[in-house]
């Protein structure tokens, strides 16, 4: 059973009688259990609409969303218990401290006494020395960690991360990546939206590229790089000549050398720059 299945999902916003905006145009993909799936796309591509549809913040126009085999549209109370969400924007309630917020969050999920889990998360996410601080007293990084702790208080099986590392420093980003990998090892499935392509490359088992409401690529980061990016080769041969080749990233070095009639034996220096996800992404969204 898949952790998440999106089936022909459409969402149309009716702005007025003449203007309709198709935010999602029949999206299909699935996330396997224990998989980290990255959803990439430029601003306004439909990523947050998709996440909001999974969490019921938005009602899709048509199609279906299944979480561990249960339809979000038919049985939302069951699917909501399986999902944890880290919103793109940080909540900013001024009334409560970290422990109170996590206690309320547990209560929303039916957990009256969740102290052990809260203590575990607060310590794990290095919030223990700030546990009695209100949100406004926390730094940006701490707020992000609190959002993650909130999403995990009820031990969800599917975690939705909507740009979780936006605006955080490199050190925190790497510690959050390590934490997401730990969650994967515990069997939690993750849907991650991000603008940082190196984040998707480092973390995701598979990625989906969404643009203008359509899923235009779905596969592993290696597959998209191989298909849409280029490999750059600079080499020096025994005769002292410098050669520069640019070819598809999917091609083997031997194939490229053969095509350019250069023998391995003649090479005295070689530099290969592998294709990057960034290049492939730019090419895909501009197709």
């Amino acid at each position, binding site marked *: 059973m898949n952790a998440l299945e999106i089936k022909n999902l459409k969402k149309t916003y009716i702005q007025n009688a003449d203007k309709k905006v198709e935010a999602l145009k029949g999206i299909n993909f699935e996330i396997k259990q224990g998989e980290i799936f990255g959803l990439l796309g430029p601003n306004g591509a439909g990523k947050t609409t998709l996440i909001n549809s999974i*969490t*019921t*913040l938005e009602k899709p126009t048509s199609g279906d969303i299944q979480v561990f085999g249960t339809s979000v549209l038919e049985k*939302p*109370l*069951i699917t*909501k*218990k399986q*999902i944890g*969400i880290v*919103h793109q*924007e*940080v*909540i*900013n*309630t*001024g*009334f*409560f401290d970290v422990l*109170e917020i996590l*206690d*309320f*969050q*547990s*209560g*929303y*999920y*039916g*957990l*009256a006494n*969740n102290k*052990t*889990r809260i203590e*575990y998360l607060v310590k794990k996410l290095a919030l223990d020395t700030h546990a009695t601080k209100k949100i406004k007293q926390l730094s940006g990084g701490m707020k992000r960690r609190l959002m993650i702790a*909130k999403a995990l208080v*009820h*031990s969800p099986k599917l975690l939705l991360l909507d740009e979780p590392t936006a605006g955080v420093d490199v050190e925190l980003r790497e510690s959050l990546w390590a934490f997401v990998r730990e969650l994967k090892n*515990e069997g939690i499935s993750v849907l991650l939206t991000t603008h940082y392509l190196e984040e998707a490359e480092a973390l995701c088992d598979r990625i989906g590229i969404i643009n203008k409401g359509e899923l235009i690529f779905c596969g592993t980061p290696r597959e998209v790089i191989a298909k849409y990016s280029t490999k750059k080769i600079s080499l020096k041969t025994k005769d002292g000549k410098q050669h520069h080749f640019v070819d598809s990233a999917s091609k083997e070095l031997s194939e490229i050398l053969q095509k350019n009639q250069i023998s391995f034996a003649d090479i005295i220096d070689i530099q290969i720059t592998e294709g990057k996800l960034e290049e492939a992404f730019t090419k895909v969204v501009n197709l």
Partner: protein
Amino acid sequence: MITQKIIPMSMVPFFTLVKKEVKRFMKVIVQTVVSPIVSSFLYLLVFGVSLGNSVTLKSGVPYLAFLIPGLMVMGLINNAFQNSSSSIVTSKFSGDLEDIRVAPVTHNQIIWAMGFGGIIRGGMVALITGIVGSLFHLMQRGELLLITHPFWTLYFVITGGLIFAFCGIFVAFLAKTFDQLSAFSTFILLPLTYLGGVFISVENLHPVWQTISHFNPLFYLINGFRFSVLGVSDVDLTTSVIVTLIAVGITYSMAQIALKKGSFNRW
């Protein structure tokens, strides 16, 4: 990794929301409870004590005694409305309303929790207003003003608190700006309160206004509550009980519609 068992359809989300509501308004107690009590104190001092001696009611009830239950209901309904509406609007601003939406919390749990939050805050203000009013009564008339029918007092606190907490939910979920929220308070709640008999008996009004007052549901709530405290009012108890029950049903339905049609998204 520690895991827990989640009880299906538990009442925990409801009690959590009630606890959150109470903790929220207790953290700003000066604004939520003390401030309305100061207003009531001033009303009692100016209208009840200073002007009250020159007001004669047809029922023969001293004006101060007449005013105290009116102010108690005013404190109750204003605070019940303010509690649910301000809680929802501040949650829309901070974004934590989205947390409730994405969690397995039912609309009924949200509505009743907000309703009970309104009853608790409104009831606290009404109770303290009643105590202060009773002390004024002791100073002016030589005896405390005691409640005649405590059961009916409790009934009208619960129904009045629910009606206005539900109204607060309705307005706050559908409102898109602060202006829309304050428009409801200024143009609907305030006239209904003042023309419902908080400060004056409808007997003292022009016959046209007397007729209009009978279409005001607050008129029945205020008079029912006044009956429970004083044992006399402008309306019989049965009518007050029936009208307030119908009002609870209508405002509950309005709150349900607001949760279905309104927005949980952040402002």
